[in-house]
């Protein structure tokens, strides 16, 4: 298996807090990697470092073996890494459909002045993607009027619309009701597997992790505490104590 | 013997008699005139006397039956709205056939902008305060008339007067407002002085922004430069502020001041004795010619009664402009048998005209520029006189100081001979 994304010895401090304290982590092509850990341990910071939103004080991030540490988010996005956010990041004044079509246009042809964004090709692709998440009926809705749960789904759909090689999902099931959680993950993971997209997802729901992750990385105080297959990691005493808690 | 020829002649004569008044009946209900001045902002200190004089003149003319029996009806345009608005207003008025003539404008910028429009819309326009020498420099303006004078004779006159009273002047400083009028005057004055006395040194040239309000820094710099003479064509609120701030600092004691537009502010601020002032033309103040004219005396008294102040030279320029318009109508109607003249006929009548005004004579040249005498004097105290007084006056003939048509005015000034001031009438000769 070829290594897709690799982080080596990442360090970053925010004031008194060391959010990354020598992080070594990698994800292979085709892999679904889960990151679990207590709140505030630096998981989202790690995603920020990988996507060029912030720079580490030490260490490097590599994509396909080439360093991407100092590149801006827009360049990294064009290299095939898409991100879905913990708090959904939508274009609130525009419709759900437009939100998706912007992602498609970015992929296909931003600088085409003569043609409209809402052309049939983009429209069809966007509707197909929305249908996959059962969001087809809210296509013409203004993003700002969407209820919480649906916002999350749209956020993820936008990331997928980029047709990336690697998608970073920050707590994809948070805000989604327990009932819909598995349905969402089934659809999502199924689509990713079919398109041969790798995924790195931060999760708190251990059932989801157990079911969908190929490998788990346990995060604590800015560094990797343990890693391995889900069954193995969940039996680790330290992990149970610090992360999962007593059942 | 009754011959057919006699009958025919009588018939024609009778028809003419009857047709005369019938044709003359073709007169409009009112003579629309557009009057442009500043009535808002600091410039209104200069512009309001102009506007007031217009209202008074219209009253007086209409009381005597109007022009050719037709009363005047004015539309006043405030130049304070900016040149764009002024042009729009002009076009709107010009597009209305009821407006027959325009009296515009006060600011040189607006004058320059309106001149081509007057040609375009073919409306005879009297530039009541358009003395900028640039007006006819590049283009001819067949419909724009400037009978009130030209900055070249206006400021060369000051140079001549100065040399006459202070032949040993060595160092001069200039403080003029920072726009065309100020820059042009500086150029004209210094070129003239250097033609009369080549070894004169310009030790400071300051151009504060129009409407600046405070001049303490400039006054400090002027004091430090130690000039013999300070020349300024600041006007309106600017001049008043400058005088108020400079007097207590002794600037007028250490240097001879020449305040070109001083007369217009004399009733608003205390100008020290001994300052050279003028009226940019042949104004009313203390002028023997004006005092000898009963109509002028009447006008001045009426103005004082209505507005509480004596008329200053902007008011006189405006009043004279109305007389100029009236003379044009009289001449046009005399020329076409009493018919009401068209705009073109009025413009033709203004061409080359010589009009007696309240203060002297306005001679219109072939290029529509005006030749007007220049009166200059010195502020003084006098017993038994109500208000400030100008003494040691001189009246220069306009023709002596006027550049020939078609020649570069600044270059022409440079050719003036150094002894010209001695050949002209001397200060104190105008009594």
């Amino acid at each position, binding site marked *: 298996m070829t290594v897709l994304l690799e982080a080596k010895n990442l360090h970053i401090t925010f004031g008194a807090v060391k959010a990354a304290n020598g992080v070594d982590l990698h994800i292979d092509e085709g892999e679904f990697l889960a990151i679990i850990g207590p709140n505030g341990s630096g998981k989202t910071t790690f995603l920020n470092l990988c996507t060029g939103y912030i720079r580490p004080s030490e260490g490097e991030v590599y994509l396909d073996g080439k360093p991407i540490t100092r590149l801006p988010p827009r360049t990294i996005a064009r290299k095939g890494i898409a991100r879905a956010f913990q708090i959904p990041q939508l274009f609130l*004044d525009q419709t759900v459909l437009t939100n998706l079509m912007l992602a498609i246009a970015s992929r296909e042809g931003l*600088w085409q002045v003569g043609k409209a964004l809402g052309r049939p090709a983009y429209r069809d692709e966007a509707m197909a993607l929305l249908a996959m998440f059962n969001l087809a009926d809210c296509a013409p809705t*203004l993003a700002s009027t969407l209820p919480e749960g649906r916002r999350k789904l749209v956020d993820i759909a936008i990331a997928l619309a980029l047709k990336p090689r690697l998608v970073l999902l920050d707590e994809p099931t948070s805000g989604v009701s327990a009932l819909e959680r598995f349905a969402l993950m089934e659809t999502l993971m199924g689509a990713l597997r079919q398109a041969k997209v790798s995924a790195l997802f931060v999760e708190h729901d251990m059932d989801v992790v157990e079911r969908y992750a190929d490998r788990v990385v346990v995060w604590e105080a800015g560094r990797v505490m343990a890693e391995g297959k889900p069954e193995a990691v969940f039996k680790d005493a330290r992990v149970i104590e610090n992360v999962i808690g007593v059942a | 013997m009754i011959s057919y020829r006699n009958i025919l002649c009588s018939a024609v004569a009778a028809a003419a008699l009857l047709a005369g008044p019938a044709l003359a009946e073709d007169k409009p209900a009112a003579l629309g005139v557009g009057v442009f001045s500043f009535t808002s902002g600091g410039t209104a200190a200069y512009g309001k006397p102009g506007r007031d004089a217009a209202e008074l003149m219209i009253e007086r003319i209409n009381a005597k039956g109007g022009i050719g029996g037709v009363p005047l009806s004015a539309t006043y345009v405030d130049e304070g709205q900016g040149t764009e608005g002024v042009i729009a207003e002009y076009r709107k008025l010009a597009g209305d056939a009821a407006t027959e003539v325009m009296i515009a404008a006060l600011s040189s910028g607006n004058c320059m902008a309106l001149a081509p429009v007057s040609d375009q819309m073919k409306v005879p326009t009297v530039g009541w305060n358009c003395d900028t020498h640039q007006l006819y420099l590049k283009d001819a303006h067949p419909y724009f008339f400037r009978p009130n004078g030209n900055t070249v004779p206006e400021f060369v006159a000051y140079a001549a007067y100065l040399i006459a009273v202070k032949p040993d002047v060595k160092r001069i400083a200039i403080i003029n407002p920072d726009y065309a009028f100020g820059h042009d005057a500086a150029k004209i004055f210094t070129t003239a002085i250097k033609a009369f006395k080549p070894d004169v040194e310009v030790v400071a040239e300051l151009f504060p922004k129009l409407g600046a309000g405070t001049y303490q820094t400039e006054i400090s710099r002027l004091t430090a430069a130690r000039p013999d003479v300070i020349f300024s064509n600041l006007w309106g609120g600017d001049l008043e502020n400058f005088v108020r701030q400079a007097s207590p600092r002794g600037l007028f004691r250490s240097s001879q001041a020449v305040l070109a537009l001083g007369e217009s502010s004399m009733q608003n601020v205390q100008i020290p004795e001994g300052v050279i002032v003028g009226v940019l033309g042949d104004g009313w103040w203390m002028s023997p010619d004006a005092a000898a004219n009963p109509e002028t005396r009447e006008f001045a008294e009426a103005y004082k009664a209505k507005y509480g102040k004596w008329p200053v030279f902007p008011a006189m320029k405006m009043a004279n402009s109305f007389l100029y318009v009236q003379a044009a109508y009289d001449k046009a109607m005399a020329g076409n048998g009493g018919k009401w003249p068209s705009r073109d006929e009025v413009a033709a009548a203004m061409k080359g005209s010589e009009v007696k005004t309240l203060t002297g004579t306005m001679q219109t040249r072939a290029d529509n520029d005006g030749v007007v005498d220049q009166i200059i004097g010195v502020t003084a105290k006098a017993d038994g006189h109500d208000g400030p007084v100008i003494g040691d006056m001189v009246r220069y003939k306009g023709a002596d100081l006027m550049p020939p048509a078609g020649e570069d005015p600044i270059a022409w000034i440079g050719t003036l001979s150094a002894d010209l001031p001695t050949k002209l009438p001397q200060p104190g000769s105008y009594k």
Partner: protein
Amino acid sequence: MPLLPLATGAIIALVAATFAFPWLEFVLTLAIAKGLAALGVAILLRGGLISIGHAMFFAIGAYATAFAMRDFGITDVFALILISAIISLVAGLLIGAFVVRYRAIFFAMLNLAISMVLFSLLSKFYGVTGGTDGLRVGTPTVLGMVLEAKGFATFLFYAAIAAMVLAGLAVNAYFKSPLGEALSAVHTNEIRLEYLGIPVRGVLLVAYGLSALLAGIGGTFAAMTIGHVLPDMAYWTDSGHLVLVAVLGGISGIGGPFVGAAFLELVHTLAAGVTDAWNMIVGAALLGVIFFLPKGLIGFIRPTKKGDLA
């Protein structure tokens, strides 16, 4: 109400009005010139950026025309428009490259500052620019034909209408294009746009350049119709006026800025001809629109649709 017949009807009404009141030609040509510049401002407003300095491009377009005529002897009206367009576009891209790094109040003030520097330069360099008195703009020729001033004014009026229609169509296509929709997204979520791989600065620079181009073309129309250019054209209150026109007319579509410009010019002209207190009348009219038509004057004829920004 359907837009196309409405717009056509409005234009026909405008043209008819000038036959009844010939002086309206000048006022409406000037209104269209300002409307073009206000449309440029509206483009930036769509991206959440307010420029209080766009009068500088209006002035650049106007002065480009004056200099081209005076110093290079160019008299053809189409050549003059093209020259102003190119110069304003280049200026817009140069200045834009610097200012699009900033947002909100900083963007607004930077534009204001740069426009005031231009104003000072135009006012100070009396020898080159004519200082505060400005420069005359003669009557241009049309494809080699020398027109008398009155005839040219009529030609310019129709040319302005054509320019307005072309600009409206072009900007409409732009708003619907990916770049235009991306522009709308800038003010709601810049970060997400970057995460989509879209360069926000590039999107804004295109918008800024386009807005400068429109303002410059407006400036050249104004210069040719007034016959005079002044440093005041770059003054910050003129920029504020453009923002006012855009917001007054309504920024949800294309027609708003032109409606706003026409409204303000007409109220100003009619009021100034009647009384010295014309400023008060203009202010009262503005208050009326703000209170009763919060979406701008265009709200009169177009109820807000879902997805509209204003």
